[in-house]
C-alpha cells in the first residue's frame, strides 16, 4: 500500500477517534461546557416500612447551557423520582375549611439555567425514594445517581441526617 494511502487510513482512524472523543467529552460532566455541581445533599431518616423517603440538595449549573435533571436511581430504593411540593388552592368540591393545601406533583425534567442553581428542599423540589430497601438511619450514607440531560450521570454519596 502506498505511504499516502496508509497515512490516509491512519488519519481516518484518528478523525474517527476525534469524533468519538468530541461526543464523550463535550457531552459529559468532565467536558468544558456541560458542568453540574451538587452541594449540601442530605436524606431524611426514614423507616424501611415507610413507603418513601426524601433527599434534598442544591444543584449548580456551571456550564454555558441550560441543563436538566431527567432521572435518578439508588441502590437504597426501587424507584427514584423528582417531585415538587406545591401549594394547591381549592379544596375538593363539598369540602369546607381552609384552602391552602399542599401536595406533590412529579417533575419529569427539572431545568437548571446556565450559571444558575435550583434548590431541592423541604416544601419544594425533592428527590423521592420510593420502595426503600432498608431503613435510612441518621449517620448512614446512601448512593444516589442523578442523570442530567447534558452533563450525564453524576454519582453522589448522600448523608442521612435529621434536617
Amino acid at each position, binding site marked *: 500500500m502506498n505511504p*499516502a*494511502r496508509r*497515512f*490516509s487510513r491512519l*488519519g*481516518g482512524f484518528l*478523525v*474517527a477517534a*476525534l*469524533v468519538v472523543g*468530541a461526543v464523550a467529552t*463535550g*457531552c459529559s460532566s468532565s467536558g468544558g*461546557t*456541560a458542568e453540574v455541581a451538587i452541594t449540601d445533599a442530605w436524606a*431524611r431518616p*426514614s*423507616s424501611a*416500612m*415507610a*413507603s*418513601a423517603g*426524601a433527599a434534598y440538595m442544591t444543584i449548580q449549573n456551571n456550564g*454555558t*447551557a*441550560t441543563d*436538566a435533571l431527567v432521572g435518578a436511581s439508588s441502590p437504597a430504593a426501587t424507584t427514584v*423520582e423528582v*417531585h415538587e*411540593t406545591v401549594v*394547591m388552592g381549592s*379544596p*375538593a368540591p363539598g*369540602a*369546607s*375549611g*381552609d*384552602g*391552602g*393545601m*399542599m*401536595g*406533590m*406533583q412529579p417533575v419529569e425534567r427539572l*431545568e437548571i*439555567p*446556565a450559571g444558575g442553581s*435550583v*434548590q431541592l428542599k*423541604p*416544601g*419544594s*423540589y*425533592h428527590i*423521592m*425514594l420510593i*420502595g426503600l430497601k432498608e431503613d435510612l438511619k441518621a449517620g448512614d450514607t446512601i448512593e444516589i445517581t442523578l442523570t442530567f*440531560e*447534558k452533563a450525564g450521570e453524576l454519582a453522589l454519596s448522600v448523608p442521612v441526617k435529621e*434536617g
Partner: protein
Amino acid sequence: MRSRSRQPGPGPGWLTLALAATVLLAACSGTAGSAPTAPARAPAATTPALGERVTAYDPARPAPALRLTDQDGRPFDLASLRGRPVLVYFGYTHCPDICPTTLADIRGALRLVDEPVGVVFVTVDPARDDAPAMKQYVDYYQSGFIGLTGSDAEIAATAEDWGVSYRKLESTPAAGYAMAHSTDTYLVDAEGTLRHHLFFGASPELIAEKIRVVAG
C-alpha cells in the same frame, strides 16, 4: 476507487469527518439547536420570618371533637389528653416531604420544652393508613406520637370540624397516589382550648415558644 487527491494528507473524506466532529462538539456545547425546553421553574420562596408561621385563635375557642381509632385499634378521644398541651396534625404515611418535615419539627420542639406534650397525627388517607400502618409510622418517631385513623366518613367529618381540606392526587405509577392536604398544626392547651395555628415551616423553636405560652 481512486482518490482524486494525489497528495498525502487530508482529502475530501477527511474534511467531511473533521466538519462532522466540529458540528458535534458545537452541538454538545449547546450552541446548536437543542431539545425543546420547558419553561424554567422559579425556585420556591424562602422561609418567611418566624412571626409569619403562626397565628393565634382570637378569641380562643374550644378545640373541635377528635374521636377516632388509634394505632392500637382502640377508640381515642382528644379529651383524654386534658392536662397537657396537644399538637394536632393531619397528613398521611406515604407523604415523603411535608409530613416527615413537620413531624421532625414537632419532635425538635418537644426536645426544647420540659412539659409533657401530646402529639396526634391524623391520617387523611385511611385507605392505606390503617391502624397497623399508623403504628409502624408513629413508632418510628419514638416520641410517643398518637396516630389516628378511621372510616372514610369519620375522617371526612373530623377534617371538616378542624377546617382541614384534603383530596387525592394521581401520581406516578411507582408512587401510586398522593394526597393534597392542609399542612397546619393545631395547638390545643391543657384545658382543651384551641390556641394557635402553626403553618408549614414553623421551626422547632417557634413551636416550642408557643407550647411554653400555652403551658405557662
